[in-house]
């Protein structure tokens, strides 16, 4: 079990720059997630850590040892492939035992370890099956057992739940979390699903077109996004273009659609900003220390356990979310509505450069 450090990793495929200088520090024993949209470079990062691809420049450390160009077979960073990559010509036992046989362990010990691994993933009794005789979820467990049994320094999981159906996804998610806690191993987990990332991770790195935008705990990432991209990627949210009209130390006033919000925290230089407000932080009744703005109702949508009210402010639509029926009683489209937001719930970020 080691910590993994990536320093300024650059990787290009022909014209495509897949990674534009990645820095990451994954601590020993934590479950660290790479989160980002498809094509942002998550798999590439994982393959570089596994030693299946090599960076154009940059350095990788496992603990104090530099492993940048160490062949995959000597690295101990074991990858669970997105398609599981089980060998169809070998039984479950032989698949799991493969890495142990390569390490020339005695037969007895191999048997014991394979049993242990299969028990860990709850697949006892499946030793003699072939991969094609297993369901998707079972295949995935074999893949995980095959990786765990060699006691990897780091376990790498590439979108492990993406090929499973919704119910199984939830089950495997907690299984993976359980196994990681039980063994205390370092896990690097890749997903494009923000909800999954939030639920499972100790820390998350949000990636966007070959760069890491922000690293932090799920709570930090969700509540204090540091870029417009991170804010908009972490679930449905309001991202409103605005202008800084007045500065006062680390507080500013911003304006959009003729609406002025005062006393917001912002320390960056750029005056082109976005105002980020989570829908559930918008109230439809007055609260203390809140700013408020009035527009008209555009739409009221019932989602069952919550209700969304979309307000129209000039050209800008802003979504608010409430669980209270009373809040929306009597709200009809085109009627005026006032949104209230506590100052601390409003995040001002520099507008993303395109």
């Amino acid at each position, binding site marked *: 079990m080691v910590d993994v450090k990536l320093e300024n990793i650059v990787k290009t495929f022909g014209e495509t720059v897949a990674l534009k200088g990645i820095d990451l520090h994954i601590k020993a024993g934590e479950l660290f997630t790479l989160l980002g949209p498809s094509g942002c470079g998550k798999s590439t990062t994982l393959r570089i850590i596994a030693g299946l691809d*090599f960076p154009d420049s940059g350095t990788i450390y496992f603990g104090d040892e530099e492993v940048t*160009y160490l*062949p*995959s*077979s000597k690295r101990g960073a074991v*990858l669970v*492939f997105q398609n599981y*990559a089980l060998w*169809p010509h070998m039984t479950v036992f032989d698949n799991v035992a493969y890495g142990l046989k*390569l390490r020339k362990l005695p037969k007895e010990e191999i048997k014991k370890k394979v049993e242990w691994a299969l028990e860990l993933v709850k697949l006892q009794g499946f030793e003699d099956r072939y991969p094609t005789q297993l369901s998707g979820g079972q295949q995935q467990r074999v893949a995980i057992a095959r990786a765990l049994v060699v006691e990897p320094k780091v376990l790498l999981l590439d979108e492990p739940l993406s090929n499973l159906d919704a119910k199984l996804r939830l089950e495997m998610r907690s299984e993976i979390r359980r196994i990681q806690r039980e063994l205390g191993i370092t896990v690097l987990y890749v997903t494009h699903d923000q909800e999954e990332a939030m639920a499972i991770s100790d820390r998350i790195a949000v990636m966007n077109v070959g760069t890491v935008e922000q690293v932090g705990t799920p709570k930090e990432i969700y509540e204090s996004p540091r870029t417009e991209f991170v804010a908009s990627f972490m679930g449905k949210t309001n991202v409103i273009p605005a202008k800084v009209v007045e500065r006062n130390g680390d507080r500013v006033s911003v304006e959009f659609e003729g609406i002025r919000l005062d006393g917001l925290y912002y320390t960056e230089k750029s005056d082109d900003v976005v105002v980020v407000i989570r829908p559930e932080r918008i109230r439809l009744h007055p609260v203390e220390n809140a700013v408020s703005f009035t527009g008209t109702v555009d739409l009221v949508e019932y989602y069952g356990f919550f209700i969304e009210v979309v307000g129209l402010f000039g050209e800008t639509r802003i979504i608010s979310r409430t669980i209270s029926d009373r809040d929306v009683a009597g709200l009809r489209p085109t009627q005026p509505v006032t949104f209230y937001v506590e100052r601390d719930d409003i995040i001002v970020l520099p507008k993303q450069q395109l």
Partner: protein
Amino acid sequence: MKVSKWSERLFGTPIFDPVVTTSFLFPLLYLIAFLIIPVLTMLAIAFVYNGHFSLYWFKNILTSDYYLSFRPTGEFYRLVTMPSGEQIYYVQGVDFGVILNSIIVSLSVMILTTILGTVFAFVMARYDFPGKNIVRILLFVPLLVTPFVNVFIVKKMFLPNGLINWLFYDILHVFPHRIVIDGLVGVIVAQTMTYYPIVYLNAYASFINIDPTLEEQAENLGSGSFHLFRTVTFPLALPGIAAGATLVGIFSLEDLAAPIVFQGNPLARKLMSFQIYSAFTSGFNVGSPQLAALAIIMLTIAILMFLGIRKYVSMRQYAMLSKGGRWKPRVAKPKGWQAALIYLVVLPMLLISIFPQIGVVLLAFSESWSGTWPEGFTTQHIMSIVTQPDIERVIMNSVMYSTAAIIVILLLSLTASYASSRFKKSQLGPVLDSLSTIPIAVPGIVIAMGYFFFFAKVFPDTPLDPTNLLGFNPAMVLVLAYSIRRLPFAARSISAGIQQVHVSLEEAALNLGAGRWKALTGILMPLILLNLLGGAMLSFVYCMSETSVGITLGSINPDYYPITARMVELMTSAVGSANLAAALGVFLMVVQIIAIVLANLITKQRYSFIGLT
């Protein structure tokens, strides 16, 4: 661990690895040593005159009427009066000189096989008619290769009392006179009947792979059936058909069987392939620089055809995009006039076209054959295969050469396909790819000649030196030639297999601690075992029937004859027995049938052979 920039550039992986390096270098060096260098040796001879670089030999050839004449000589056909007083048409073609003759024969065969192959393929792909399953089996018959003997039967069919004249003159009275073909026309007809199945297979695959909705859409817009074929179906299938036709063109160019069987007519000898071949049989002026120059001209024509089709097919790959589509092909019941065409024209044509193979069997089991049909049943010739020591020996020789060649071919195709499909970033990959497909376009007789120069120069006065005559042992030379010539066909089967195995299966092994060798032998090879088997059987058949090198370098020393060398001897020498050659032909057909059945049963994939000699 250090990264190596040049390992990355050459082999596509920044970590130097002996298995990867070997996978690139073994096939590459092998092809350079035994394909490129022998051809270069030939260049070194053809471009030198009086010790200097010179185009003298090429000028010599291109200015001689014997080789190149734009004013044809001779009559295409003439009316000959037989001793009996009966008049017959004797058709032999006209003489444009060796080079143009070869090109004209090749083009004619391409056109005729394209018509025949496309018609058969279209009928089989689009119509459902009673008896279709029998036809499907019959269509495999002309694929069976019986070097020389099938051409011998074609020649027989067109004799005054042969099958064709019996049918069309005596019975149907279609011909105004009996027709005898010989010379270049004989070669064209024989090659057409030998090679049309290659176009058929390509055209059939293309028709089957056309998305039916494309045709339905056109029909929907009011396209009639012939219009539909002309504007939609044929253009979509054209790249496949053209690829098959080009292959046929190259095979025709290098074919020796037809010119050898028709060599009684001087015109049949005026072909490039025969000119080079006859140097081997007539007292060894093989070393002549002028012949080397002719071989280079022949090679250039073949390679231009090959490159032309490669460019064309890749440009119009769209038609092949449909490959792998799982739609139900459009099959219709033929309308009245279509059914009449199928039963009255297409099927009789098919029956005539498979007659050579049937004839070979008849010949092998008959005592004599001088009239329309053979006479006297006997198993004596077939039994010779197991009783006559010289026949047993040539079979054993061929089996040994072919087995050794298979091992080399498998090693070459495995390493080359592994290297170029797994290390795509390598700059050597495309070079390796081209080098391992180019043997398709190198005529066998050119390889034979290149080897002659190469081994005489590099290993003089050793058993590898062909000028050593009875001191020459062709085993190694033949194995090398077989392995080079058959490589593209086996490599295709094996690289298709490798492409079906997802690369992550090997990566998972590497990632768990396996080296490249373990991942290759423990993961990839077991997973492509069936492709390896299929490739091996394919190669075996193709090696057993190899002709060009077998009847030149292979026929120098009788102790080491391969089957084809003995067959050509039986067919051409005064004391030879065509019946015995036919028996060997039957033996080869049986080997081919067993191999094709086994390949299809074991691998459960649809293998078919193309008639390679």
